[in-house]
C-alpha cells in the first residue's frame, strides 16, 4: 500500500436519528393500561371472531372495528422462534437468547417475546410457556411489564393447534 493510500479515510459514521411522538390510539391505550394492571387485553373481531393481542382497533382481514374486549391468560404456545447470537447495545441481555413468536391461549395472532429460564437449545415449536411479570410496584403501561416468558410443565401443543398462526 502506498503512502497516499494509507492516509485514506477508511470509513465515516453517518448516524441516523428519527424522533417520533407515538400516540397509542384507543385500542393500544386499553392494552397498555391493562399491562399496568397485570392483565393482557385483546379484542375480538365481530365478523371472523379472531382475537387480536395486542389489539389495533380493527380486523385487518375483515376491515371492521373490533370493539369487543377480551382478556386472555398469560399462557401460550411458541409457534416459531429464533436464537439471537449477535449482541446489541440496546439490549441488556447477553446472547445467545431466544426471541419467540408466542400465541397466547385464546388469541389468534402471535407476538414476539423473550424466552428465559431455559437453555436456548431446548426451545422448540409447540413449547408451552407463561408470562413472567415484573413486581407489582413496577407494573406500568408498557409491554415491559412482562419481563419474559418461561416454559411450563405441560406437554407440547400439537402442530395442528397453531399451524394457521405461523
Amino acid at each position, binding site marked *: 500500500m502506498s503512502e497516499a493510500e494509507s492516509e485514506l*479515510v477508511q470509513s465515516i459514521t453517518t448516524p441516523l436519528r428519527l424522533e417520533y411522538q*407515538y400516540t397509542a390510539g384507543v385500542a393500544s391505550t386499553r392494552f397498555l393500561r391493562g399491562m399496568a394492571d397485570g392483565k393482557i387485553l385483546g379484542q375480538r373481531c365481530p365478523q371472523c371472531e379472531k382475537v387480536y393481542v395486542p389489539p389495533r382497533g380493527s380486523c385487518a382481514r375483515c376491515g371492521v372495528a373490533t370493539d369487543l374486549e377480551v382478556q386472555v391468560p398469560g399462557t401460550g404456545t411458541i409457534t416459531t422462534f429464533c436464537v439471537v447470537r449477535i449482541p446489541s447495545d440496546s439490549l441488556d441481555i447477553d446472547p445467545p437468547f431466544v426471541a419467540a413468536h408466542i400465541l397466547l391461549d385464546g388469541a389468534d395472532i402471535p407476538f414476539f417475546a423473550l424466552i428465559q429460564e431455559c437453555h436456548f437449545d431446548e426451545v422448540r415449536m409447540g413449547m408451552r410457556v407463561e408470562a413472567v411479570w415484573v413486581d407489582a410496584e413496577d407494573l406500568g*403501561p408498557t409491554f415491559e411489564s412482562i419481563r419474559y416468558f418461561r416454559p411450563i410443565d405441560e406437554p407440547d401443543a400439537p402442530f395442528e393447534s397453531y399451524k394457521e398462526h405461523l
Partner: protein
Amino acid sequence: MASGDGGLLSASHIVEYPYRRSTGPVMGRFFAALRDRRFEGVKTARGRVLVPPTEYDPQTGEAADEMVPVGPGGVVTTWAWVSHPRAKHPLNHPFAWALIQLDGADTAMLHAVDTGVESAMQTGMRVTPRWRAQTVGSINDVACFEPEGTS
C-alpha cells in the same frame, strides 16, 4: 382498570442507526483531502470533474480514479432557505441549503451557506468554505460556506 380513566397514551419514540460506512478508494481520498482543508474531485475519462467524486462515470460506467484539486471557492447554482433549523442541521440560525459548484468542478455538491439573511442569498453568488477548527475527514469539516470576502 376503571373505564374512562385517562386519555390516550403518548410517548416519545426515538430510532437511531449508528451506521459506519466504508468509503472506498475515491471517497476515501475526498475525505482525506477535507481533513487537510482541501477539496478534491475525480476526473473521468471524458474529462469531466465530479465533486463529490464517484468511483465510476455515472454516464458511461467507466472507472474513474484520477483525483484533481478543486475549489476552495465556488458558485451557488441553486438554493433553498431554511427559516427554522432543526437540531441536526449544521447551523442553529437560519441558513440556506445550496448546490455549490466548486471552481474546476463540473458538478455541484450540497452544503450549507451562511448569509444570515435570506435576502443575501443569490443564485450565481460566489462562496468560500468556513472550515472547522478540528478536522477529522468528514463533510462536516466544512462548517458551512459563506459569501466570498466575508472573512
